Each structure stands twice: as C-alpha cells, then as structure tokens.
C-alpha cells in the first residue's frame, strides 16, 4: 500500500511538476520579454547605440581627489572622441559614441569589488576602466577574469597586480619598481657627472604597501647592480594615514644619511615633510617617490617643498604636441591645467581602449581583450609617446625626474635629453 501510495502520489506529481516548471519558464520569458527582446533586437541589428564602459573610481574618501581627476581625464577623452562621431566599429559599419557607467567606491576596498562585479555583470559594458591607487586596483583586479571583461587601470602601478597570470587586466602606469630603479639611475648619473660623490648614504622610509615595497625593490636592484655607488643605511616602512612620524624621522636622523628617499601618498607626504622640516632635518637631496609637484602639497609645505625631486609618470610640461593639446582641452573643460599625472593616464586609457575596439572591429569582449594586447598608441601623452601593454598587461613607459624650484617652478632634470633646468644636488639651507 505504501509503495502504491508513493507511486500514486509521485505519478500525480510529475505532470504537475512539469506544468509548474513550464509555467516558470514561460513566466520568466514573459517577464524578461522586453529586456530579452531588446538584447535580441540589438544583436539582430548588430550593434547597440553606444559603447558602454564601466568606471569604478574613488570619487570620495581618502583617494577622492586623484580618483576625481582620473574620472575627469576619462570624460575629456570620451567627449573628444564622441565629438568626432565616436569609435569606428567595423562589424557595425559605423561610429559609436562612448557611454560611461560611473560608480564611486568611496575609497573602500570592499565596495570597489562589489561595484566592479556589478558593472561587469549587470551593465552590459564592453570594458571597465577602474581604480586609482594600487590597493584599490589590487582589490578590483581579481574580478575581470571571472566575468571575462577587459579591465584597464589608469592608477594602479604595483606590479604584483599584473603578475598573477590574469588575462583580462591592463595597467597604464609603469611599474613602481621602475620608479625606484629610475630614481637610483638618476642619482647614479649625478655621480657619473661628478655632481654627487660616490658612496653617499641613503635613508629609505616608505609606506607599507605593495607600492612602497616595490619602490624599495627598484632601489635595491640598482644598488646591487652598482656596488659602491651608494649605501643604504636605513630602510623602514610606515602605515598609511599616519598622524605622527616623529619617531621614524628621529631614527632616520640618527642614521646620518646624505639622501632621503621616501615613497608615500599625498597626505602622508605632506604630514611627513612638515614634521621633517619642523624637526630641522636636512639631507642633500630629498624625494617622496612620485609625489612632490602636486599643488596642494606645495601650498601646504610652502618653500619646504622646493628642491624635492620626484619620478613621475607624466607632467604637463612634457614637450609633445599632444600633451600641449591635452592641457589646453583640460583647461577649456575644467578651467584649470592638470597639476598631476592623474588625468593623463586616464585619458590614455580611453584612447587605447578606443584603438583596441577599432582594431578588433567588434564589441566582442574577447576580441577587444586580444586587441588590447597588440595595439600601440603612438601619440600617447606619456614619456616616450608610445603606450603598449606588455605580456602581463602592464605598460612599461619610462619615468622622468622633475625637481621643484622656488616660485612653484618645476624643472625636468632627467633624462638629459628632456632637461629644462639644472639639478640642485645640495638643498640650500
């Protein structure tokens, strides 16, 4: 009886289950109808009305300022491209404008991952441009391979992000390791020219992030390759967002170094260099990595920011016609010149994406990804004027070294062929 009962129950259930499933499927299709038919229509027409690009940046919070500047660079590039009719997509047989889908991650690592997932899964984007800062970039970079959407970062330079074997990530910033290496190469060139003595002592104080660690790796690589040129006598790291650096600076003072090298984000650079000056510390040369020329820092530090040198990804005075045109357009749109590299790499990220779409001739994400690996932007704003991604997805453009001079002036001091002023190797007291 039991068996029969079960069979009888099961027998009556199976058709009911099939009916239910069929209803769910039909209902779902009905509900999805407008959307589904929209996609079908787009596919049958071949193309959407615009190239949708996801953007996830810190517009507020700790990294709000550089993040906002990067968004401005992206918008400027999109506006200029759209003004010319957009990007030519061969399979559509016409030009399509860019359309931004922007999210603010509030400088929060958890939120930035959620937003990248959201835009890659729900916004029907062909690519995502995202992340200012290596730490936010590190967080975002795990998502693109999962959703198979090309991701380009104009603001994450730490190479561990790109050395994980991921296939869908690209970075416009050259590795921070190269920044440390170029800084030392510059100092080495000063020894060769007799402007610095051989065997000077170096103190290094960097933020405890991939950015800082990689900077030290670059410095150490050069020091190892050039034994006897310089001697590292102090090497310490600090946690980002510090409120007091007196202890670390006092210890550095005791190391009695000749040259002080740091790698810090803007707020830490300002706080640390204020304390450095207030403590009466003096070194022949001082650098805070890529920081130094920013307008807020020069306002906050006054003459104390003079003679600080920096290895930078870009500067508005680079002598290329495309840089002059970019600065003019930036000024026209935002009523100010760019005071840092932030908008320039973002601007080039859009242009290299446009070049990849044109090269792919399609809005297919895999085709765009493959094209990004091959394409070369030969009128890049960055030093060397050519932007191309390496095998691991990261660009390898050279750094230039600049030095602040009194009166808010900045001189290019390295490499020699781009020099606009004499390097000062002993900061005047």
């Amino acid at each position, binding site marked *: 009886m039991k068996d029969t009962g079960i069979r009888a129950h099961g027998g009556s259930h199976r058709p009911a289950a099939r009916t239910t499933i069929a209803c769910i499927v039909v209902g779902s299709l009905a509900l999805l109808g407008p959307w589904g038919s929209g996609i079908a229509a787009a596919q049958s027409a071949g193309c959407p009305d615009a190239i949708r690009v996801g953007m996830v940046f810190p517009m507020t919070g700790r990294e709000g300022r550089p993040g906002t500047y990067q968004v401005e660079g992206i918008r400027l590039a999109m506006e200029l491209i759209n003004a010319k009719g957009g990007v030519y997509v061969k399979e559509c047989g016409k030009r399509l404008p860019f359309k931004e889908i922007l999210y603010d991650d509030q400088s929060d690592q958890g939120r930035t991952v959620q937003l990248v997932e959201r835009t890659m899964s729900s916004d029907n984007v062909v690519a995502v441009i995202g992340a200012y800062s290596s730490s936010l970039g590190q967080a975002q970079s795990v998502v693109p391979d999962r959703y198979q959407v090309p991701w380009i970062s104009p603001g994450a330079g730490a190479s561990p992000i790109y050395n994980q074997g991921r296939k869908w990530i690209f970075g416009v910033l050259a590795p921070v390791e190269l920044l440390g290496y170029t800084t030392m190469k510059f100092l080495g060139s000063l020894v060769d020219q007799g402007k610095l003595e051989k065997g000077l002592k170096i103190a290094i104080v960097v933020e405890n992030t991939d950015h800082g660690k990689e900077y030290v790796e670059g410095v150490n690589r050069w020091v190892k390759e050039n034994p006897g040129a310089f001697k590292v006598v102090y090497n310490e790291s600090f946690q980002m967002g510090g409120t007091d650096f007196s*202890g670390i600076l006092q210890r550095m003072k005791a190391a009695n170094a000749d040259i002080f090298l740091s790698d810090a984000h803007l707020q830490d650079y300002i706080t640390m260099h204020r304390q450095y000056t207030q403590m009466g510390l003096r070194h022949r040369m001082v650098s805070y990595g890529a920081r130094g020329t920013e307008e807020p820092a020069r*306002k906050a530090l006054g003459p104390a920011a003079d003679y600080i040198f920096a290895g930078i990804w870009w500067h508005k005075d680079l002598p290329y016609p495309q840089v002059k045109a970019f600065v003019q357009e930036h000024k026209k749109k935002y009523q100010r010149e760019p005071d840092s590299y932030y908008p320039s790499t973002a601007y080039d990220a859009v242009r290299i994406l446009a070049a990849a779409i044109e090269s792919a001739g399609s809005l297919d994400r895999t085709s765009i990804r493959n094209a990004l690996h091959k394409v070369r932007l030969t009128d890049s704003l960055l030093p060397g004027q050519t932007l191309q991604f390496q095998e691991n997805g990261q660009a390898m453009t050279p750094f230039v070294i600049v030095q602040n001079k009194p009166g808010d002036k900045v001189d290019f001091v390295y490499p020699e062929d781009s020099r606009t002023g004499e390097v000062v190797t002993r900061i005047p007291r």
Partner: protein
Amino acid sequence: MGLDDLLNLFVAAILLAGIYTAMSIGMTVIYGVMKMVNLAHAGFMMLGAYFALEMSQRLPIDPLITSVLAAPVFFLLGIATHRGMVRFVPVADEPTLPSLLLLFGLWLVLQNFGYAVWGADDRSIFTPLTMATFRFGGIVVPVIRLIVFGIALLSLVALHLSLQHTWFGRSVRALTQNREAGQLAGIDTGRTAMLAFGLGIAFTGLAGALLANLYSFTPDFGGSFMLRSFVITVLGGLESFSGVAIGAVIVALIETFSILVVPANYQHAISFILLVVVLLVLPGGIEGLLQRWRRLR
C-alpha cells in the same frame, strides 16, 4: 640613538600628548554626563578644521587665533545639535544602540556635507610659523606644535576651573558620578546635559581647528584621531578628566618610543593592543587604578 635623539623623542611625545588630550576631552565630557560615545567626534573635528581654514582665509588675523574662535562657535553648534536631535535619545546609564546609531549617522552626514561644500581636495593652513623651530641645546622644538600644546593646556585649565568653581561644573561632576543622586539634589539634568554636549563639541571643534594648523585635511579628516580619542578615553577611565590627560601622555609616549623596538608600520596597532590590554587587565582605566590606590592608602 644618542641622548639628544631620545630627548627630542620625549619632547615630540609630550607635544603630541597635548594634542591627544585636547581631542579626547570632548569625548570624555559627553560620555561622563550623557553616557554616550560620540561617534560624530570625527565629523565635528573635521568641521573644526574647515572652520579654521575658512576663518584664516576671511580674517586678517593669525589662524591660531581664529582657531580659538572655534570653541564658542562649536559650543553653540553642540547646543543646537543637542536641541535638534540628541535630546530625543532616551537617557540611560550606559551607551545605547539608538545613541550610537544616531551619532554614527550624524558623522556620515557631516562627512558628506564636507564633500558637498569643500570637495575632496587636500586642504591645509600654511603660515610663517608652520615650519618655524627653535633650538634648545640639541633639542629642536617646532613652534607651531608648542603653541598648539599651549592652547590645549590653557583650555584644559579653563575646563578644570569651570568644573571646580561653577554651578555648571559641579552639576557635571555630580551627574558624572551619580545621575540619580544628582537629580535628587535638584540638578536640572536636561539643561546640564545640553550644556555638557555643547562643551564637548566645543572642545572637539577646537581640537579640529588646532590640528588643521598641523596636518592637511579632507572631509575624511578625524577618523584615526577619533579612534585614538576612544583609546585614550577608555584608558583614562571613561569619565575622568585627569585620567584622560594621563592616558594621552601614556599613548603618546608608547607610540613615539615604540619605534625603538617595534617596526614603524605597527605603530597604529599599538594603541589598539593597549586598548585590549586595558579592557582585560584594567577595566576601570587609570581612574580605577587611582581609586584602588587611594583606598589602599
């Protein structure tokens, strides 16, 4: 490190302690009378910093003097905040969820207000005093830090005198010690709470304005200072004003001298390790320790 280096570290720690005391005392006043952890502390500090910036740009007087103006302005702002929202939170003898949520929400509102008004750019105040130092033998003293320390010290003396010699001060001390006994003695708890909240916000705004002379700031400013204030307040014994001053000195000394034995990138963690240790070993904080010592005598 030589003796001069150690003395320089000691001076730096004491000057830092002055700043820490100024920023923590507001939290202690509010907790003492109202048993509320002011999670909007960072928001009011940030407003204090921007107040100093705006005043320094508008008035032809030294930003340090305009910073002092923050105290009366933020006292009124504190009173308005109490009248407008805080007084509706039920009174309790320990922090309640509504008070925590209200003040946390207020912090977020203030932060976003900051972004809307001033944007995300780093701002700072720079005067000829910013980088000035004077030497005393081998010891280098930053003038601006010394002045900030002096103002913080003077404001603490003023607080101490008002707590000892005014009706309001006696009411605050009575409510801090025993709310019910205070009520039975005829203290107007509502009015005292309102004035105490105003006083706490006045100190917080003053601390923010003073810190603006030392650090660059954005609307995010104050978060790490608030966490330190919390550590110092707990270390001081939550309701003790003298405990806060001693706690600030201890935290500043430990943070500054820990560099000699602990890598600098653990400096932030030290305060929080200290917090855990105090909560486990010394739940009454320094004030509890002092009371035990007095009883033994």
